């Protein structure tokens, strides 16, 4: 694209980005991306995790400085994204997924947190302020009590308060409102309410950049949709006339090479793990079995239940009803020690909170679940322990293979391998692996996956709970997709493909 075409100020564009590139050490997060948000439109930004959406937002908000050669215009004015003025920054408002409200303060107090505009000790007229807030809420067509405590509001009301706070009274000067996954915490009716509010704001002349995973909702609310994949522009689509299926194929890309599906184990294998009508907060009647030699994937959108199933199996989360049968033994409640005793070991997704103790060495972490194993003649036999640990570090290819190093001095990939080693050391027949390759570089991810495949070939029953469709496609014989706490569908063999998985996770037709 030549420079001359973009030099003419485009009055209708609220924000315009050209040749936007952002490189981090060892990784290009955004590669020559262009984005145009027309004045008065609702523009959606979609793409998979890691496609560059959040980097783009952070560049817009001035958090990341883009590489040289990127150019940007705000309301037709050329600007330098690396050094935006206060006023330019103020013309874009951001609402992040966590909303950044203070839950213990009232609506009114939240709205006035930053913008009291008075001295620190200047007295204020509570009554007058309340009237102002009421007026402000009315302009957004909202009925929220200014005195209500934010923590007690419904998820929609919280989102609305965050929006009102972001916009303040001055919707005229605002070029763009950016919303990042605003409906993640909302139910269907609340999403409708939020859309009504967004359309109302849009009607006041505010352009909106809407970032979301929920494609059905995106098609409902947006005028146009930009798709990112691997840090590059794929296309800009008109929402009208686009189907969810078309959108997904653009998000996933047709250039995905099909991994060879793993050969399924024979049908006569023993079922080592049977989950039977599991119920609990966020889980409804979950049942499935896993046979020896089989890798079964669990996936879904964040919060849809698949991650909770893995936690229940690890003994980390109590369940209200149903049972877990491990090698024929039936458990109606499961704590970590009984799970291990029954021959089931787990690798949690939360490395920091559940997986590893940061102040411990590699060896101390690795042997923790059965630290008594090397206790002889009244003390822990360090030499035996070290030899055992070295063996497991070799099996799982941990670098450096140093048992005495503190675990937090290893890279994420190697920490992940230590967690796997810790589980394998317990000699389990059933393995429950949650996000086994999250935040891990490509090399480490490949070696972890190779290990998982080998373990299955050796007759382990393996559950992989993952949000990474590529990983599931590569590893699993079957994949169960959860939606709203239930297993919504099961894919086998050739049906397990990246676009099919993305579709099944995000499909909302049934609701």
């Amino acid at each position: 694209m030549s420079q001359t075409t973009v030099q003419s100020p485009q009055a209708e564009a609220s924000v315009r980005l050209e040749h936007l590139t952002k490189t981090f050490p060892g990784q290009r997060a955004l590669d020559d991306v262009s984005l145009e948000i027309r004045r008065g439109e609702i523009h959606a930004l979609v793409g998979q995790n890691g496609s560059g959406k959040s980097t783009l937002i952070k560049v817009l908000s001035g958090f990341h400085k883009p590489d040289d050669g990127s150019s940007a215009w705000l309301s037709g004015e050329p600007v330098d994204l690396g050094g935006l003025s206060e006023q330019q920054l103020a013309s874009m408002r951001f609402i992040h997924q966590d909303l950044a409200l203070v839950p213990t303060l009232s609506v009114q107090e939240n709205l006035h947190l930053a913008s009291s505009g008075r001295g620190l000790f200047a007295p204020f007229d509570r009554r007058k302020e309340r009237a102002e807030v009421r007026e402000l809420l009315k302009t957004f067509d909202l009925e929220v009590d200014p005195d209500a405590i934010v923590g007690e509001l419904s998820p929609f009301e919280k989102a609305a308060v965050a929006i009102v706070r972001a916009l303040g009274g001055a919707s005229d000067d605002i070029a763009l409102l950016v919303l990042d996954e605003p409906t993640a915490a909302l139910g269907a009716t609340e999403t409708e309410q939020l859309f009504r509010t967004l359309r109302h704001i849009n009607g006041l002349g505010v352009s909106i950049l809407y970032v979301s995973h929920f494609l059905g909702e995106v098609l409902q609310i947006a005028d146009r949709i930009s798709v990112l994949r691997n840090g590059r522009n794929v296309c800009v689509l008109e929402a009208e006339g686009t189907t969810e299926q078309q959108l997904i194929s653009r998000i996933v890309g047709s250039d995905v090479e099909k991994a060879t599906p793993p050969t399924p184990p024979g049908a006569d294998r023993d079922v080592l793990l049977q989950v039977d009508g599991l119920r609990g907060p966020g889980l409804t009647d979950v049942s499935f079995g896993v046979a020896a030699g089989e890798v079964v994937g669990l996936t879904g959108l964040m919060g849809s239940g698949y991650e909770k199933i893995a936690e229940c199996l690890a003994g980390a989360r109590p369940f209200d009803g149903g049972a877990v049968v491990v090698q024929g033994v039936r458990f109606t409640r499961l704590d970590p020690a009984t799970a291990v005793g029954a021959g089931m070991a787990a690798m949690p997704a939360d490395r920091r909170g559940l997986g590893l103790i940061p102040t411990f060495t590699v060896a101390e972490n690795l042997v923790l679940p059965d630290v008594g194993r090397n206790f002889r003649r009244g003390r822990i036999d360090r030499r035996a322990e070290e030899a055992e640990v070295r063996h497991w570090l070799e099996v799982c290819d941990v670098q450096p293979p140093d048992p005495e190093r503190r675990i937090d001095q290893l890279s994420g990939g190697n920490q992940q391998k230590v967690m796997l080693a810790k589980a394998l050391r317990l000699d389990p027949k059933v393995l429950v692996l949650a996000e086994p390759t999250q935040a891990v570089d490509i090399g480490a991810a490949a070696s972890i996956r190779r290990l998982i495949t080998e373990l299955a070939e050796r007759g382990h029953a393996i559950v992989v709970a993952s949000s990474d469709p590529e990983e599931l496609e590569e590893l699993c014989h079957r994949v169960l997709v959860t939606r709203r706490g239930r297993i919504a569908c099961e894919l086998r063999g050739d049906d397990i493909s990246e676009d099919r998985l993305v579709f099944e996770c995000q499909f909302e037709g049934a609701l």
Partner: protein
Amino acid sequence: MPQQTEAAATAPVSAGSPRRAPDLGGLLARIGPSLSPRKISGVYLLILLIVFYSLATSTFFSTTTLRTIATEQAITAIVAMGLTIALAAGVFDLSIAGTMGLANIVAAKLMADGGMSPVLAILLTLLVGAGIGVINGLLVTKARIDPFIATLGTNSILLAAIFVVSNNQNILGIPAGFQKIAGNQVAGIPLPVFYVLGLSLLLWYVMACTPLGRRLYATGGGREVARLAGVPTTRYVIGAFVCSATIASLAGVLVVATIGTGSTEVGASYLLPAFAAGFLGATQFKPGRFNIWGTVLAVYLLATGVKGLVLMGADVWVPDLFNGAALILAVGLSGIQRRAKVTEVAPEAGEPATLDDTVGPSTAGATR
């Protein structure tokens, strides 16, 4: 790739190197790292202090002074060791002061007014201490109250109990035979020094050499991680409180024997030195971990520092200043140690390690 667990069986054979004649170079290489100033800076500092005070004053370097320090600090060392167990389990125990005070009164009362035999009185007192520990433990694990707040509360309740039990009167008439457990000497060394030695050996063994100790540290390092690894963390936390309180009441009993009365004023003055020693100790021997030898070293290091200053004519407020500054310095120091360690390895670690920055080994770990 072998993946069963034969490794454990074959390990000792492959790892046990054939015995060689002692060679000095190898020996140095093996123990060298543990003599590094990074690990035992406190030992070098202690030596330095002793040399300095010996030269600066005429009275410091004498058996009397050394004996005084050893004896006076035995009680602090004992309380601090108990506290170290609680800190290792990741909880604060501020009630050790009140526990000590109440134990002191209860033991005195049982012997002086109740006419009970010393052995029985000591056992009963320790039982009271253990009970206080159980209450602390239940408050923290079952009622889920932050340990800092819970033990701050129980401490105040214990102060009230001291008042009620003693009727705010010091208790006199302690049997002379009982006082011998603190006053007697063996080979010129006062008995309390042996108590410190015995207790530290016992606690070191349990905390450093047994699975129980490892699980205790795991509970303190990451309670959920430990729980998922099958550690009954609730029991470990309660157990840690029980140990800390029982040992504090043992110290309270020793105070009665030392001063010969049940005093209503005992306890509070030991709280800060115990915490200072615990945190300063966590920078020694095994940096980043509360450990018994570190605690004991820190107690004597602080005491030597204070004693020397007093002999040089320092005012009465100096010990408080010294201990307070040491506590702050120790916590600051462990933070620096931690950060230095991370940057030291960052280049070869490839991608940034993600575990460290929020969970500190000695300070942050002990807050919940």
